[in-house]
């Protein structure tokens, strides 16, 4: 048991490192291409080793703790944010066999863990003893707490449709078709609300108010440098991966191949592609979508951010839950 635990721990850490490297590189390339630039080109062919070089740089940088900061909490915050991101990884099914912890309350668990992220941001912002950081922390508090509702409700809609809280069960219910195809309008609406609200929970543009570059310089992590900053950044990308994985699992069938109808030639071809590839493909599609948002839209103002949640997303997702319940009760989905 200890050996299994060790193997899992090592593979999770490896996954973290690789994901961090790949996603940062991907973000920079996506941004560059949208901005008619080439992006990193120097380190390795097409700049592939750029993020590796950046990591080395970040490790070797001086670790600055500002005067008057609460040292204990200042050091704790980046650790907390990384640990929370790690915890949320546990119940996600990467393929039909690869799942760390097949929990029967997986969806609920991920929602619960992701609600803790705000604490580390609040702590980081408060402990920095910087006014910009404090404003950023306050903003992120208001933002994450409100958007959690919409995320939760869109999850509830999907849980209603699939009738289970367990990720592996939810994937199994999509054997014939993904929920986005057979869930009618409620699944679509839940998908969109989930993507929007989780972008907000990730503090990414257009909802990046806690770090608003042009207003608060870097918001809650203004004072962080070196590896501590890297941990904040890493956990942002890990969280992005988790959100995309959840969306892929709930709406796009997780590791399930694309199937149309019953037992035909097309389905058999699709079955040859390994489940892990399906899963990764879907996850990276959603990650790309979130990146696309970031490099297109301007940032919202704080009151508009809250208006969007409380006047639009929340009522819509409440009605959507009702509709999903109706569909489930009447059995309208295929």
């Amino acid at each position, binding site marked *: *048991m*200890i050996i299994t635990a060790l193997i899992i721990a090592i593979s999770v850490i490896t996954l973290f490192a690789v994901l961090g490297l790949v996603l940062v590189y991907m973000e920079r390339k996506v941004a560059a291409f949208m901005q008619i630039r080439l992006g990193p080109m120097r380190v390795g062919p097409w700049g592939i080793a750029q993020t590796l070089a950046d990591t080395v740089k970040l490790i070797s940088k001086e670790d600055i703790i500002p005067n*008057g900061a*609460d040292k*204990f*909490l200042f050091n*704790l915050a980046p650790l907390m944010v990384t640990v929370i991101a790690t915890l949320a990884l546990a119940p996600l099914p990467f393929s039909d066999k690869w799942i760390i912890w097949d*929990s*029967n*309350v997986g969806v*609920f*668990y991920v*929602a*619960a*863990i992701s*609600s*803790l992220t*705000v*604490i580390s941001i*609040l*702590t980081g912002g*408060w*402990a920095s*003893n910087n006014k910009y950081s*404090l404003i950023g*922390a*306050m903003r992120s*508090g208001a933002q994450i*707490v409100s958007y*959690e509702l919409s995320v939760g409700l869109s999850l509830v809609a999907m849980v209603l449709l699939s009738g289970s*809280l367990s990720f592996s069960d939810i994937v199994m219910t999509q054997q014939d078709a993904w929920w986005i195809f057979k869930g009618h309008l409620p699944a679509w609406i839940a998908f969109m609300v989930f993507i929007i609200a989780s972008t907000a929970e990730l503090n990414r543009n257009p909802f990046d108010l806690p770090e608003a570059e042009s207003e608060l310089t870097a918001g809650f992590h203004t004072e962080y440098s070196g590896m501590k900053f890297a941990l904040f950044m890493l956990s942002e990308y890990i969280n992005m991966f988790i959100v995309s994985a959840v969306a892929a699992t709930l709406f796009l069938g997780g590791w399930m191949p694309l199937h149309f109808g019953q037992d035909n030639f097309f389905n058999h071809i699709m079955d040859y592609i390994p489940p892990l590839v399906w899963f990764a493909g879907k996850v990276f599609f959603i990650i790309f979508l979130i990146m696309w948002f970031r490099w297109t839209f301007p940032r919202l103002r704080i009151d508009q951010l809250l208006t969007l949640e409380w006047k639009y997303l929340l009522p819509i997702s409440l009605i959507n839950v009702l509709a999903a319940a109706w569909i489930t009760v009447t059995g309208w989905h295929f």
Partner: protein
Amino acid sequence: MKAILFYIFSVLILACGIFTVTSRKIYRAAIFLLLTVVSVAALYFLMEYTFLGVVQLVIYAGGIVVLILFAVLLTHDSGSLLPPLGVKRTVATFALTGTGLTVFLYTILGRKVEPGSGEFNEPSVKMIGGQLLDLYNFGFVLPFEAISILLLAAMVGCIVLAMKFSKTMN
């Protein structure tokens, strides 16, 4: 393995609990409270009572501690040390906690605890949900609805209190 984890978490709970009440920085106290709450959730997970563990995380860590932190952030001077307790207060606190501990131990020790069968089955989520919204079979639909209405009333009250009324509205 489980026993080791149990002791680790128990020590964490106790230590963080003590730090929570002795820390003189209010924000640190809240963070220690968070660690306590999360460690309790970890114990639930250890007992494979995952649903309760998750509920613990959502309500206590994700809800109450965040609320406390928010309140702390909104107050200025949250970074300065709280004044140390006076002698009177220290004595009173010790007396109160001592009484509580005595009552608690008395009750626990007075009862004979039977060792369980060893097998423990977590009620499925479906069962919990069914029981919560059941009209019959000792279901909890009435308290559930009553609490819903109470919370709704509280929410409306909050909004009314927080709303700013312009002079022209009067």
